[in-house]
């Protein structure tokens, strides 16, 4: 009998509303003091293709998903048996294999399926007449004949049925369902609650569910806890940082962030512009940045590929932004639009021609996303360069509990600015100073946008400020911002622009650069980055319980890269393995490039699915045993 540690899964065709019931279930658990980690797998398709949503619930912190589920709600045949029947190359074989010992399968009795098909005797099957239940609910309000229109309520029926199984208080869920339907839609809410209730009772009455091994009990009422998705956290961080404009072009998995912000336009006075493409998004953003407002955009790989000239533009003209959240997805090219991959690190590090400065950071979870996105606006303005925040499909879409979301570094820092009237001339070196006829520059009596200053930063101005006038160009330029091809000036300007990376490296707090989790004297050091953080931490907990000593070096700030610190840790490590959700081990490559420490042992997963806790545990156990090989999911 396993209490309060449960994974519930619902599967069905895209468009069948599995998201709704999964998220209702998650919320109902979270509100009741349980911790939740929910994630969805779906196709790049609008309707019909197989998708499924997993909700893992526990009374301790859950930061990853499990291979196996305890309860499966199947809305269609494919969820049970896979797509081998209608695809020449089967992509999966159904989720029956994904159930834990003695798990329960709730499925639509209208589906052509007999438990005998499953080669498992241990499973408990609960065929439920989904449509009949919907009809019944409709009859009560005299709408029986409209059943077809309400077919989408099947997912609610599935939810209601499963609540009976895990023996969870129905009212908690009812409240959440009702909450989803505001105003004049509240009637539909009542209908759904009713359907769920009927399903709940149907199961209790028609099946012997006593002693079903997986159950849930509400915990103590939580305090500031919230249940959020990654793209919401990134969006809220942008609002909090004072972002004035977000430009975007729709692309999964980045669109959600922009759509969320679009909904806040009225209340927060933030402008969201849907552009004709990503070239337009990035260039509008750069134009806005030069006007002195904080500006951001968001995209994923294919869109980023169109933004690279704009990144170079921003960096060359020292624009104070934009902040770009890059939601990685399965590549290359169009690749796997709705699937997970950490495949864009090396691209994001060298995204355009020439040597130029930009900052790249990769938060590992939602709290870090909140902090790094917020800080990125300060960095962009302080160092006058574009900042890329690497996120991914997993971070964007996971729906998980967070205890009190706070910023450790919450000050707004807009960097050195030309302040008009009360401007005090900065001391600015001319590259030809000292040269006989070098028209040396000395102290800048007047304001020069691209002055070569002692601080290494040219205080910025913006159109509209008296006396702050300047020119700018993507060609190499002089302090006025006019084109130059002179050797000394070229060298001085390159040094100024590139020098800003060292300034940033000094100023960015160490705990935003990297972290070493776990025991210092470990037998194995796992090196990883980004969204695998939670999974690795969960795995380390399990491994620690087994008495193995493994620690985890999390790389977070990718550029400027804390090479010395990382190298030091790695040199001290007994053994090192890099674990990444990409084919080549891009972080390992980057670390070698920066430190010369070449991590040969690389465990990669490139099947478009994130590591499960179990896969991570196995992978690390293997690494400890000297077995290093790619990991392939078996839950599709």
């Amino acid at each position: 009998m396993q209490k309060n540690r449960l994974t519930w899964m619902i599967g069905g065709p895209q468009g069948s509303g599995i998201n709704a019931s999964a998220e209702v279930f998650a919320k109902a658990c979270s509100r009741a003091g349980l911790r939740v980690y929910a994630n969805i797998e779906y196709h790049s398709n609008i309707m019909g293709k197989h998708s499924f949503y997993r909700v893992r619930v526990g009374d301790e912190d859950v930061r990853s998903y499990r291979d196996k589920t305890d309860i499966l709600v199947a809305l269609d045949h494919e969820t049970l048996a896979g797509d081998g029947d209608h695809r020449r190359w089967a992509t999966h074989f159904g989720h029956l294999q994904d159930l834990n010992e003695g798990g329960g399968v709730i499925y639509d009795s209208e589906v052509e399926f007999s438990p005998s098909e499953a080669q498992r005797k241990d499973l408990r099957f609960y065929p439920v007449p989904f449509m009949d239940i919907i009809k019944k609910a409709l009859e009560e309000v005299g709408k029986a004949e409209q059943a077809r229109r309400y077919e989408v309520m099947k997912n609610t029926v599935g939810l209601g049925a499963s609540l009976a199984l895990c023996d969870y208080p129905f009212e908690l869920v009812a409240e959440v369902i009702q909450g989803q339907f505001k105003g004049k839609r509240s009637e539909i809410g009542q209908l759904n609650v009713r359907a769920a209730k009927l399903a709940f009772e149907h199961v209790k009455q028609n099946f012997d569910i006593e002693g079903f091994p997986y159950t849930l009990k509400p915990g103590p009422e939580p305090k500031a806890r919230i249940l959020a998705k990654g793209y919401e956290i990134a969006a809220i961080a942008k609002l909090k940082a004072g972002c004035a404009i977000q430009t975007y072009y729709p692309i999964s998995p980045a669109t959600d962030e922009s759509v969320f912000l679009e909904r806040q336009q009225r209340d927060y006075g933030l402008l969201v512009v849907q552009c004709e493409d990503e070239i337009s998004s990035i260039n509008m953003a750069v134009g806005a940045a030069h006007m002195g407002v904080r500006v951001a955009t968001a995209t994923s790989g294919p869109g980023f590929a169109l933004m690279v000239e704009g990144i170079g533009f921003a960096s060359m003209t020292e624009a104070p932004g934009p902040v770009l959240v890059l939601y990685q997805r399965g590549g290359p090219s169009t690749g796997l639009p709705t699937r997970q991959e950490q495949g864009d690190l090396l691209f994001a590090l060298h995204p355009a021609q020439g040597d130029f400065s930009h900052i790249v950071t990769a938060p590992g979870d939602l709290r870090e996303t909140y902090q790094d996105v917020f800080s990125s606006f300060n960095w962009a303005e302080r160092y006058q360069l574009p900042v890329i925040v690497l996120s991914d499909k997993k971070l964007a879409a996971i729906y998980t509990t967070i205890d009190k979301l706070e910023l450790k570094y919450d000050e707004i820092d807009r960097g050195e600015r030309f302040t008009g009237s009360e401007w005090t001339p900065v001391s600015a070196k001319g590259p030809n100073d000292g040269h006989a006829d070098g028209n040396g520059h000395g102290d800048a009596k007047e304001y020069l946008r691209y002055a070569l200053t002692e601080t290494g930063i040219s205080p910025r101005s913006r159109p509209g400020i008296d006396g702050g006038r300047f020119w700018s160009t993507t060609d190499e330029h002089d302090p006025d911002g006019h084109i130059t091809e002179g050797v000394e000036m070229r060298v001085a300007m390159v040094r100024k622009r590139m020098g800003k990376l060292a300034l940033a490296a000094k100023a960015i707090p160490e705990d935003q650069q990297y972290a070493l989790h776990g025991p210092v004297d470990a037998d194995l050091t796992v090196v990883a980055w980004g969204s695998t953080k939670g999974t690795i931490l969960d795995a380390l907990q399990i491994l620690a319980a087994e008495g193995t000593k493994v620690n985890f070096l999390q790389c977070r700030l990718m550029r400027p890269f804390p090479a010395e610190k990382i190298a030091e840790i790695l040199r001290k490590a007994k053994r090192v393995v890099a674990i990444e959700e990409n084919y080549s081990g891009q972080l390992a490559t980057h670390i070698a490039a920066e430190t010369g420490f070449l991590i040969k042992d690389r465990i990669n997963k490139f099947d478009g699915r994130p590591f499960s806790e179990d896969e991570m545990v196995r992978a690390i156990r293997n690494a400890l045993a000297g077995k290093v090989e790619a990991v392939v999911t078996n839950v599709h």
Partner: protein
Amino acid sequence: MKLTIKDYKSELHNDWCPGCGDFGILTGIQMALAKLQLDPDKVACFSGIGCSGKTPHYVNAYGFHTLHGRVLPVATGGRLANTDITVIALGGDGDGYGIGAGYFVNTGRRNVDFTYLVHNNNVYGLTKGQASPTLAKGKRTKSMPEQAIQDGINPIAMAVAAGYTFIARAYALEPKYTADIIARAIQHKGSALVDVLQTCPTYNDLYTKEWYEGADLPEKTSRLYKLEERGYDGKVHDATDAEEIVAKKAAAVARSYEREPIPIGVYYEVELPTYEDELVKRIPSLKEHSLAETDTFKRDVNPLLEAMR
């Protein structure tokens, strides 16, 4: 105190070829700014890449010399961030109608309030005289190894289809007239396109000063005429009258195909709500001040977090 052309000239040494039509356009811009007495600190010129792209460096105002073909998105972003600024976007015909064609079209759909000047010299000047998108099929300048194999585009017709609300054509070697048109374009509320016929003495030996002046024609009559002088009125007088709009658009398109002589002046003009007008409806605070002047740092995001309980 009154501002004169000189106040709009930067001190930078100019490096266009002697006799380049760009000088005329530059003067036209400066005359227009003087005519409207605009404060140089409240004007920003954005340009693409090309000989024409260097223009902002010669104008005493904020200057942004951006990327090849991207001037419109950059200028749009600039304008939306700071609506207190008069925004002038400009660039070459290759920059705007070739590599920038997608932005030319999509920008027309927005009707952001700015002016876009295209230096139409029929060649890619800065890359040594290849055919630009405005060179007609079969034509060949001295700088080309072969005749143009593609059709030239019709910028006026394109602009009409794309939705620009002020569409005009000027001639670089008539700076005063060009200045008048530019001034009107700047005053127009919405996206204004001014296609400026520009000579390139270095590479374009087809459409030269002499050619435009008709030096080779029997009566040496100019190959240009001013629309208003032949009673053409491109202005939509009742913007709520869909029929008038379509009629004026069709008329503008028809005129845009006239080649000998070529009409200059205003082909089409209509007063419609701008993108900025629409934004004010969504973001009331924009009525008080532009985003650049807004304090965006005191937001309370707690309501959003509360909703995630």
